[in-house]
């Protein structure tokens, strides 16, 4: 039960955090200059966007949940199961970020979900 709760936190909080970070980076705009100082400026600019801080907080929660679940389960089980966030990510991309998710992408996401199910069953 404890492992299921921790994995839920990893998936939901991690995906929520990534969506918030994406929103912040879209606000910053496309990065075209990859020199170190330019990258530092991009990071500082991103830190001024509140979505970035919400995203980082949620990802921190996901990170500590990941640490906790890694103390009781193998990394080759935990990491594939967290792939459930691909389904959550596609939904979030479509409904929260307004991205157009093509049928082909949905098919890929479906395969990922089937794979996660097999990994879960294969461990039991």
């Amino acid at each position: 039960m404890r492992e299921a709760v921790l994995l839920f936190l990893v998936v939901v909080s991690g995906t929520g955090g990534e969506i918030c970070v994406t929103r912040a980076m879209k606000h910053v705009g496309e990065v075209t200059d990859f020199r170190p100082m330019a990258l530092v400026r991009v990071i500082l600019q991103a830190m001024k966007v509140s979505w970035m801080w919400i995203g980082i907080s949620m990802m921190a929660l996901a990170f500590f949940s990941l640490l906790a679940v890694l103390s009781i389960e193998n990394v080759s089980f935990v990491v594939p199961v967290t792939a459930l966030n691909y389904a959550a990510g596609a939904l979030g991309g479509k409904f929260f970020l307004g991205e157009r998710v093509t049928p082909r992408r949905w098919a890929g996401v479906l395969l990922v979900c089937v794979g996660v199910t097999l990994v879960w069953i294969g461990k039991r």
Partner: protein
Amino acid sequence: MTSSDGLHLKTYCMLLIMVVFAPLGNVFLGKGMKGVGSVVSWSPSQLPHIVALIFTSGYIWLGVASLLTFFVAYMLILSWADFSYVQPASSITLLVVALLGYFYLGEKISPLHWTGIVVICLGVFVVGNTPPRTTEVR
């Protein structure tokens, strides 16, 4: 080189960085946390001691450094590519994690487990053949 080729090239370079550093980070964290001990036996009074163990583990710091590298690449790629493209496309890291877990950490992985990982990678292949950006540039 067209701008579309350039967009794909820098997208694939960032994906490569992500595919290398995300699995390494997870494997180092896994190794570090196995040294800290099971969460099941943690009690609130032990928390400061456990936090100290976590943050003095070399493997944890290696894992954090690898994941930070991954995160910077992830932030950069998200500035031009769709989230719903980047996230599934980077899931090839799952296969790399399993291989590292099997060969480096000596974890036991059943045939069904491997099948599941291969199916996930098939999903990645399907997603990877879609355009990186489907929305208009603002």
